[in-house]
C-alpha cells in the first residue's frame, strides 16, 4: 500500500546520535508546583531519551488528565494530551495503526488506575508494545487533593475528611495479575535508578509498566519519605538486581528470605543466615515477581524497586503484523474492486 506515512520512514531524520537532553525540551513553560516530583521524572526522561537512538519525530507521548498528564507538553516529541483515563486506549490505537512509532503513556494514579483502570489491565493482557509511566503520588493532584485508588487506608483528604476507607491497589500486583510482561518500580528522588528503569522500559518489547513514586508536595507531601530520605531509605528500600540475592540495609546487613511463600527480613549479621538463604531475584519468574510485588502490602518489609518482571512474549502488534503478512502470503494483497464483484453478482443490460 502506498501510504504516505510509510514514505515518512524514508525521509531524512536528525542524526539520533547527536541528541542531548535539550533536544527533548519543548518550548512550553513547565507548570507544576515548585518542588513537585514531576520535574525530576521529566528531567530523567529527557536525559535518558538521547541514549535510546530513536529519532524524536518517531516518539509520541500520550496522556490523560492530571498534573502528571501535562507531561507531553514538555517533551519536544509528538504529544497527545487526551481525556481522563483514556491514554492507554488512545496509545493502543496509535500503536496498532503505527507500529513504527515509539509510544509512551504518562499517567497518574487516578488517571491510570481509577477511571483508566480498565484500559490499563487490557493493555497489559494484550501485551501491546507501549510504555506506561505511572506517576503515583497517591492523590488526585490536579483536582486539588482527593484520595486516589493508591491512597493508603486512613488517609485524610478533601473527600475523606475522616480517613479513606478504600483498600489501595498495589499497581505492581495489578499489572502482574493482568499479565504484563514488564513490571518495574522507581522513585522520583533517585535519578540514576529512574533513568535506568526508563531505559529498561524503552528496551522492552511489549507492554512496559513502570510505577514511579512521585511526591506531590502540595497535597500529599512526604508520602514516600521513608523510601527517599537519606536516613531512612536504606532500611526501607530494596533494590532488585537480576540474579542477585535480596539484600538491603545501610551496610547490606539485611536480606529477604521466604518463610513458606511469605517473604521476611532476616539479619545477615549474626551468622544465622547467609546470602545463600535469601531469595535470588529472577526477572523471568512471574510467581517470584508476584511475591516481591506483594511485599508492598505486608508490614515490616522494605519496598522493592527495580525490574520485578521482564519476559518476552509476542506483542499484540507483532501478532497483528504477522497475521496480516500470513494472510497476504496466502491470499495476496486484497483488490477491492475484485471483492465488490466477487460472489453472486448479475448484470442488467
Amino acid at each position, binding site marked *: 500500500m502506498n*501510504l504516505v506515512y510509510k514514505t515518512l520512514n524514508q525521509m*531524512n531524520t536528525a542524526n539520533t546520535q547527536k541528541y542531548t537532553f535539550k533536544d527533548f525540551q519543548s518550548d512550553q513553560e513547565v507548570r507544576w508546583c515548585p518542588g513537585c516530583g514531576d520535574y525530576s521524572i521529566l528531567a530523567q526522561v529527557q536525559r535518558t531519551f538521547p541514549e535510546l537512538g530513536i529519532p524524536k519525530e*518517531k516518539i509520541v507521548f500520550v496522556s490523560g488528565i492530571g498534573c502528571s498528564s501535562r507531561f507531553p507538553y514538555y517533551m*519536544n516529541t*509528538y504529544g497527545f494530551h487526551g481525556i481522563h483515563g483514556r491514554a492507554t486506549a488512545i496509545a493502543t*490505537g496509535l500503536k496498532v*495503526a503505527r507500529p513504527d512509532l515509539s509510544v509512551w503513556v504518562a499517567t497518574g494514579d487516578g488517571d491510570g488506575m481509577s477511571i483508566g483502570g480498565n484500559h490499563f489491565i487490557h493493555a497489559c493482557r494484550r501485551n501491546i508494545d507501549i510504555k506506561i509511566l505511572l506517576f503515583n503520588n497517591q492523590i488526585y493532584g490536579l483536582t486539588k487533593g482527593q484520595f486516589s485508588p493508591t491512597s493508603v487506608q486512613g488517609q485524610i483528604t478533601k473527600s475523606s475528611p475522616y480517613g479513606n476507607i478504600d483498600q489501595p491497589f498495589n499497581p505492581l500486583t495489578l499489572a502482574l495479575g493482568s499479565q504484563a510482561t514488564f513490571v518495574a518500580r522507581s522513585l522520583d528522588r533517585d535519578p540514576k535508578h529512574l533513568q535506568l528503569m526508563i531505559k529498561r522500559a524503552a528496551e522492552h518489547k511489549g507492554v512496559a509498566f513502570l510505577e514511579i513514586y512521585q511526591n506531590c508536595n502540595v497535597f500529599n507531601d512526604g508520602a514516600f519519605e521513608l523510601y527517599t530520605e537519606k536516613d531512612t531509605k536504606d532500611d526501607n528500600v530494596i533494590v532488585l538486581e537480576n540474579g542477585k540475592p535480596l539484600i538491603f540495609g545501610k551496610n547490606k546487613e539485611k536480606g529477604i528470605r521466604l518463610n513458606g511463600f511469605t517473604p521476611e527480613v532476616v539479619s545477615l549479621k549474626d551468622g544465622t543466615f547467609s546470602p545463600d538463604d535469601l531469595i535470588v531475584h529472577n526477572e523471568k519468574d512471574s510467581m517470584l515477581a508476584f511475591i516481591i510485588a506483594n511485599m508492598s502490602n505486608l508490614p515490616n518489609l522494605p519496598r522493592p524497586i527495580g525490574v520485578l518482571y521482564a519476559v518476552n512474549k509476542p506483542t499484540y502488534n507483532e501478532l497483528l503484523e504477522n497475521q496480516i503478512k500470513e494472510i497476504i502470503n496466502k491470499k495476496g494483497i486484497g483488490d477491492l474492486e475484485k471483492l465488490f464483484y466477487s460472489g453472486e453478482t448479475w448484470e442488467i443490460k
Partner: protein
Amino acid sequence: MNKTIKSLEEVTIRFAGDSGDGMQLTGGQFTTTTAFVGNDLATLPDYPAEIRAPAGSLAGVSSFQIHFGAKEIRTPGDQCDCLVVMNPAALKAYLKCLKDGGTIIANSDNFTEKNLKLAGYDTNPLEDGSLGRYQCFSIEISKLTQNALSDMNLSPKLVDKTKNFFALGLTYWMYNRPIEPTLKWIKEKFAKQPDIIEANTRVLKAGYAYGETTEIFTTRYEVEPAQLPPGKYRSITGNEATAWGLMAAAKKANLELFLGSYPITPASEILHELSKYKNYGVKTFQAEDEIAGITSAIGAAYGGALAATTTSGPGMALKTEALGLAVMLELPLIVVDVQRGGPSTGLPTKTEQADLLQAVYGRNSEAPIPVLAASSPTDCFDVTFEAARIAIKFMTPVIVLTDGYIANGAEPWLIPKLSELPDISPKFATDPTTFQPYSRDEITLSRPWAIPGTPGLEHRIGGLEKSHIYGNISYDPDNHDFMVKLRAKKISNIVNDIPPATVYGGTTGELLIISWGSTFGAIRSAVENKQSQGKSVSHMHLKYINPLQKNLGEICRNFKKILVPEINLGQLIKILRDKFLIDAIGYNMVRGLPFRAIEIETIIDEILK
C-alpha cells in the same frame, strides 16, 4: 398436470419459523436468487433478542420478509402475498401481515398439541376453518423431508434441520425461480461435508418437485425482471455496505483503515465484515468497551489512518465524551451509529430512529459534528463514503446514522467503479518552516493533519482550549469565544460543499413530507402512490442532518403544510421548526418496526382531506 402461470408486478413473502428453523438462511437464499433473476427487492429480517427462546414459543419466532418486483422496490412490503410458516407460533405471530386471500404454506407436522398450546391456540387453525379467508396449503414438510433422506442414514436431528430447504424449493417453484444458485451455494458452503450437500440438495429438489407434481398447486407466479439501471449488481445489506463504504473511502484516501469497535447489536456485522480484510489494508481492533473503541480510533486518526468506530445507541452514549475530544483535536473520524430501539437496552434487535438529537446535540458544551443519515441498505455505502470525504476535508469527526432495519435488510446494489469515486486523499503537513498546528485553510477552515514520524513537526495537541493558529493551551476569554465560534462555523460552512436538497414531486403545493433515514422507502412509495392519484404531495428526503442544506428553508416556504414522519417522538422536526419557524407536524410511531407505506398514505389522506 397443467399449471396456470400468472404474471405479477410485485410479491411479498415472509418465511417464519422457530429460531432453530433456519428462516434467515432461507430468506437469504431466496433473496440471492431473486436478485439473480433481476428483480428489484428489499428485505426485512426479524429475529428475537433472546439467543434462543424456548422452541415453539412466540418469543422464539424468527422471520424474514422479502418484497420483490418488476418495478422499483423500496420497502420490504406492507403486507404479504405469501406466508411460509414452520410452526403454529409463526402463524400466530404473522397472520396479521397476510393480505386477504393470501397464500399460507404451513408445515403441518409441527402443528402438534404442544406447539399449538405454546402458540396459544386452543384448536388447530389448519383444521378449524379459521383460515378461510386465505389460501392455505397444509403440507407435511417434516415427513416429506424425512422421506427424501430416508436412505441416507442421517441423524433425525440433522434431517430435521434440512426441512427449510423443502420450503425454499417449493417457493422457488411457486415463484418460478431457478434452484441453481442455491445448489451452487450449498456446494461451496458445505464443501467439506458431502453428506450435507447431498441432503440439502435432495430436499431442495424435493420441495421444487412437490410443487411441480402435486395437484394442490394450480397456479405459479412469474415476476419479470425490473427495469434497473444497467450494470453489474449484487445483493448487499446495510452493514456490509457500510463496511465496504469505509474500505472504498480508505482506498480513495490512500490511507489504511482502522476500525476500533465493541460488538453490539445491530452494528456488530460491520466489525465482522471488516475483520475479514486484513489483506486490504484494514485493521480491526475489538476494544474492551465503546470508549476504547472510539479513543483507539482517535489515536489511529492521530497516527494518520482513516479511523472509524461503529456502534448502536447505548454504545453511542458511551462515546459522548470522546466525541468532544475529537471535536477539539479536529481529527477526521467516522462514527457509525446503527440505531436500535431504546431507551437504555430497550428493544435491541428492533429498529428506531431516535438517536438523531443525541447525534446533533448530545455532547457537553458546544461540540458541533456533521451528521449524515443513510436511507437504504445500499445508501449506507454512499453515505459512509461521503462521511469520510467530509471528515478528511474538514478535519472533523462525522456521525453516520443508519438503523437496524437497513443494517440487516438487503437490496440489489449497482456495483460502483472505484475509479469513478472521487479522490479524497488528504495532504499531510510536512513543511516545518510553515507548520502551525491550528493554522487554517482559508476555505474549509480545517487545520493541517500532521502525523507523528514527520521530522520537524513535533507538536502537542489535547482537549484543553487552544490558541488560534498556534494550538498552545489558551485560557484567554476572547480566544475561547473565537474558537468556539470558529469550530461552529467550520461545520456550518460544510453547507457550501454539499449539493442542495431536491424535491420529489412539485416544488410548490399542499403538502411536503420531509424525512430522513430508513423511512425513505415507505414514504417515497406512499408519495408516489398519492401523486399518481393526483394528490398535491411532494417528498424531500434528507441525507444531511447537520448542517442542513442551504435551500431547505426556501423549499419549505412553498408548501402549505409540512409533515415530518419519524420513528421517534419527533426529532428532526424539532430542528426544522427551530431553524425555519415552520409549523411542521409530526407523525410518530415508535413500534420497533419500519413504517409501512400504507400508514403514510393514510396520514397523507387525512391531511389533504
